[in-house]
């Protein structure tokens, strides 16, 4: 049965009203945020800001906001002129999750990579690399449970970086700068208790970053429409009296609660420009610094990738410290990312769109793989039927449209 839209009409209307009210609230919070930002905009305030952040950490107040690196918090920076030649590598991944009702227990990771020799006029190189996992060591955790989808996602994230590093490494002799781009944050989220081999995965991830570090690559993680509130967390901290900084006070963003960073920076960041560089003060980033070294700590900035006269479209770009410390490289990456965003009308890097397209496993392809598995199992005298539940689901699914798997 299809979705009964008439039953949703009132709910959608109500949703519109609530969101409009929220926007009014956001507008007043933006004003407060800009006041705090302006009050600390002068470079002379940087030591004070650093001191306040350090104080919050010393108090063990659970501070998760941003810390400016060495640039005034309200400064904006233009990109370098677009390099005449450069190498751009992008990777994305997708997966088929384990399905207890399928013909066999397995999961698949697929990685799409594109290598663009910017300025050459040559067609890019593309690759799609699928990996099938079915052996017990990959399918079961020590507690004998089947691997969770979160665990598969974590392995995918790590292997995305490994794939990017491998292709990036092979481009180290090509035109510079070398931009190696991945969709989403560089910080490794989703590595909690549900991922028992997280320590090993982290090592693998850092090893891949090491390869890119050795290649002197401009590694960057691109997050479109970010909802992060790291800078707002900093403004909230600065809004508090030093003696009021407690875990309870930092549990939310006070007068700025719910305000995303991009709403603040979007007020004054012009197209192509980036914000100052910040570091997110989280245990995850601390682990990056502690385990992989200071060069691997993750910094970030926001940049406006919109067209000249259009409304702002901000993205968050994360870079490791070895990139952040090289401002000429940051400016070149900024120019290349902006250029990539303007290859398509959607203001999203073309290379990431293509990497995604190369990685995505369509529903029909997943079905075809299941068929291949069934054939091979049957040839080896094994039962290869999907469960009764899955057969029932397939029967009612009929010709209805299906979403693609993964990514």
């Amino acid at each position, binding site marked *: 049965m299809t979705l009964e839209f008439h039953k949703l009409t009132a709910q959608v209307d109500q949703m519109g009203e609530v969101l409009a009210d929220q926007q009014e609230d956001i507008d007043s919070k933006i004003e407060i945020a800009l006041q705090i930002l302006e009050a600390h905009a002068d470079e002379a305030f940087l030591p004070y800001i650093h001191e306040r952040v350090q104080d919050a950490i010393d108090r063990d107040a659970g501070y998760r906001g941003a810390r400016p690196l060495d640039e005034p918090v309200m400064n904006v920076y233009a990109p370098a002129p677009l390099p005449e030649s450069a190498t751009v590598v992008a990777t994305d991944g997708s997966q088929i999750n384990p399905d207890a009702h399928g013909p066999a227990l397995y999961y698949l990771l697929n990685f799409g990579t*594109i290598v*663009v*020799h*910017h*300025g*050459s*006029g*040559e*067609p*890019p190189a*593309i690759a799609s690399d699928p990996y099938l996992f079915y052996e017990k060591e990959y399918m079961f955790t020590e507690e004998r449970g089947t691997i969770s989808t979160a665990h598969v996602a974590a392995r995918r994230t790590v292997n995305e970086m490994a794939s990017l590093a491998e292709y990036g490494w092979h481009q180290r002799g090509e035109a510079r700068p070398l931009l190696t781009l991945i969709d989403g944050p560089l910080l490794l989220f989703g590595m909690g208790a549900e991922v028992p081999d997280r320590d090993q995965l982290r090592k693998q991830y850092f090893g891949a970053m090491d390869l890119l570090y050795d290649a002197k690559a401009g590694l960057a993680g691109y997050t479109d429409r970010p909802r992060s509130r790291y800078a707002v967390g900093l403004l909230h901290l600065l809004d508090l009296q030093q003696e009021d900084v407690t875990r309870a006070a930092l549990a939310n963003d006070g007068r700025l609660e719910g305000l995303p960073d991009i709403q603040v920076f979007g007020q004054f960041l012009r197209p192509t420009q980036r914000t100052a560089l910040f570091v997110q003060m989280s245990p995850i980033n601390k682990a990056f610094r502690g385990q992989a070294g200071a060069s691997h700590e993750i910094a970030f900035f926001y940049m406006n990738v919109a*067209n000249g006269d259009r409304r702002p479209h901000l993205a968050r770009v994360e870079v490791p410290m070895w990139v952040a410390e090289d401002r000429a490289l940051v400016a070149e990456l900024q120019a290349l990312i902006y*250029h990539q965003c*303007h*290859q*398509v*009308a*959607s203001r999203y890097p*073309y290379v990431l*769109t*293509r990497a995604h*397209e190369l990685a995505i496993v369509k529903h029909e392809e997943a079905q075809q793989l299941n068929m291949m598995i069934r054939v091979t199992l049957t040839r080896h005298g094994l039962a290869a039927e999907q469960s009764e539940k899955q057969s029932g689901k397939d029967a009612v699914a009929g010709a209805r449209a299906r979403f693609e798997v993964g990514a």
Partner: protein
Amino acid sequence: MAEEIWDEAIGHVLRAGTAGFSVGARVNQIGAPAFGMFVRAQPRTDDREAVYGLLYDIHIDDDPLVRQLVLADAVSEETIRDQRYHRIVPLEMSVLAIGYRHISGEVRYTLPPRPPLSLDPIYLCGPDEVREVASRFNYFRLVLNAAQVPGEQLLASALLNAADTLPEDERYPFLVQAGREAASLLGGDLTRLDYLLKLISPA
């Protein structure tokens, strides 16, 4: 010896019927084929006939990403070449069947006994083959009576293409002869005949 354009397949059969077939190709293969060219669907096995036809439509499909690129400000050469070389953006060509090569080796100007199969390669006919196929005008009726094609335009283009394969002093007589054949078929429709003759008349 350099490879000629007719030595390499321009695409492969997507769909086929007795009256014609559709050919799928990548966008970067658009260089060689043109409206009115003689093509051959080559069977992969000897037990089927090669089918001859005239290319009458070239259609380029879009997809959501292409639409995004069209609206973008300044698309780089690398991006355009990525689209043309790597992405599966199909170029679809339609072919009207005009005859086939019988197992005996003779070209027959009737609809083929069976259509080509999916994925059979499609070749442009080389000059010798065009001269052979176009040497008889028995296919005119198939072209002029086909509802789905612009008949006079297609026949005129085919005749001009065929004339180009002849020595210069044979071209005009060939077109005159073709015009006479068309007149015998379109005697009851002078508007169409006049249009066709104008299209093939030397400037």
